[in-house]
C-alpha cells in the first residue's frame, strides 16, 4: 500500500515542492531528526520527515553556511516530504526543497496527519462478497456471482440486521481485527438481479446499514454438488485467512428449499455461542461418550 504525497494536501498546507506531489509514501513512520546531532542524521529513514519547532529554531540560530549545509544534507536524504510544525520556516529550506522537488508542508495537526498515514497505509484487500452485521457479528458472505449473496443479504436486512457492503468489500487489518467496509461509491446500495440497484438505507432506514464491521465469520455459499462432502457435525472448525488473520469459516451448500438467510443467521448465532464456549456438536459428543461408557 502507498499514499501519494498529494493526498496530504487536505491535512496540511503546501509551502514548496509542488513538483513532487506524485511521490509515494510507503511507511506510516514519521521521522523526527535532531539536526544538532550528526549521529542521528545518519540513521534517518527516507519517508516523511517532521521538523519540530525546536529544529526550526535551531536552524535559525545557526550561521548561514552551517544552516545551508544541514539543509542540503536533509534534502539529499531524499525524504518523500518534509512537514514543519510551529514557527517560521527557513527560506533556504523552501528553496532547496523546491529545487529538489520535495514537497514541504506546514501543519498544526501533526497527529491528524500521522493518523491519516497509518490509516492509508494499513494492509488492505478487496473481495467479491457481501458483508452483513448479524447481532453485531460481521459476517462475510462469499460465493460465485448469482449464487444469491445479495438476496440473502436483503433477507437478513429484513430480519433487522445491518448491511455493511455489497459486492465489493474492502478489508483492512487493524491490529488483529479485519475491518470490512464498502467503497464510498457503493455506500447503502445493494444489487439484486431483476430489481437492479436499490438503496437499502432509503428503503429500510438508517438502522439497516452500518459503515464498517469487524469480520467475525466467513460463510461461503456454494451450489450443492452431489457426492461432495459437507460438514455433518460441525466438530471440525475451519478457518478462512484474510491478511494473515484466521477467521472462522463455513461452507453452506445452496439448494432450493434451503432458506439461506435463516442458515446464515443461525451460523452467526452459533459462532457467537461458540465464543462463549457453547458448542452443540461437542456437547452431543460428550453426552454420547458418557452413554457409551455406561
Amino acid at each position, binding site marked *: 500500500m502507498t499514499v501519494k504525497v498529494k493526498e496530504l494536501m487536505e491535512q496540511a498546507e503546501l509551502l514548496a515542492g509542488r513538483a513532487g506531489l506524485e511521490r509515494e509514501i510507503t511507511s506510516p513512520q514519521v521521522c523526527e531528526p535532531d539536526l544538532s546531532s550528526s549521529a542521528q542524521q545518519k540513521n534517518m529513514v527516507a519517508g516523511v520527515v517532521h521538523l519540530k519547532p525546536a529544529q526550526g529554531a535551531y536552524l535559525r540560530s545557526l550561521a548561514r553556511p552551517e544552516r545551508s549545509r544541514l539543509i542540503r544534507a536533509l534534502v539529499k536524504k531524499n525524504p518523500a516530504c518534509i512537514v514543519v510544525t510551529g514557527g517560521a520556516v527557513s527560506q533556504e529550506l523552501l528553496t532547496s526543497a523546491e529545487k529538489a522537488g520535495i514537497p514541504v508542508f506546514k501543519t498544526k495537526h501533526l497527529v491528524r496527519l500521522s493518523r491519516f498515514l497509518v490509516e492509508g497505509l494499513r494492509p488492505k484487500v*478487496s*473481495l*467479491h462478497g457481501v458483508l452483513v452485521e448479524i447481532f453485531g457479528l460481521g459476517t462475510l458472505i462469499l460465493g460465485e*456471482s*448469482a449464487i444469491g449473496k445479495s438476496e440473502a443479504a436483503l433477507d437478513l436486512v429484513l430480519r433487522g440486521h445491518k448491511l455493511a457492503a455489497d*459486492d*465489493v468489500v474492502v478489508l483492512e487489518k487493524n491490529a488483529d481485527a479485519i475491518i470490512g467496509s464498502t467503497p464510498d461509491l*457503493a455506500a447503502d446500495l445493494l444489487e439484486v438481479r431483476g430489481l437492479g*440497484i436499490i438503496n437499502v438505507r432509503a428503503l429500510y432506514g438508517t438502522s439497516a446499514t452500518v459503515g464498517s464491521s469487524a469480520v467475525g465469520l466467513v460463510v461461503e455459499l456454494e451450489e450443492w454438488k452431489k457426492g461432495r462432502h459437507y460438514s455433518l457435525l460441525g466438530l471440525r472448525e475451519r478457518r478462512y485467512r484474510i491478511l494473515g488473520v484466521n477467521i472462522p469459516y463455513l461452507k453452506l451448500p445452496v439448494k432450493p428449499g434451503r432458506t439461506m438467510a435463516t442458515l446464515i443467521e443461525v451460523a452467526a448465532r452459533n459462532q457467537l455461542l461458540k465464543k462463549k464456549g457453547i458448542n452443540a456438536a461437542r456437547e452431543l459428543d460428550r453426552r454420547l461418550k458418557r452413554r457409551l461408557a455406561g
Partner: protein
Amino acid sequence: MIKKEVLIENQLGLHARAAAQIVKAACAFSSKITLVKDGLEVDGKSVMGIMMLAAAKGCTLMLHADGSDETDAVARLECLFKDKFGEKE
C-alpha cells in the same frame, strides 16, 4: 487463466450502461471473469463491482478470465472496450 490489459477509450468511461454491457457479455461465459484496477479486484459479472472501479477514459484495466471458455470470453470483452461500448463520439 488469461490476463489481458485493456484501455478505456470511450468518452464517458465505465459508466452504468457500459458496466451493464460488460456484465451481459460476461454472463454468457462460464469462466470466472475479474477486472482489476489499482489493486481493486471486482467480479466481471457484477454491475456494482464494475462501477466501483470508477474507471475514466484513458485508464487501463486488467481483464482476467479463468475457465473452459476463457479465450472467447476475453476476446468478446476486449471487443466491447475497442468498440467504445457503442458510444457515439
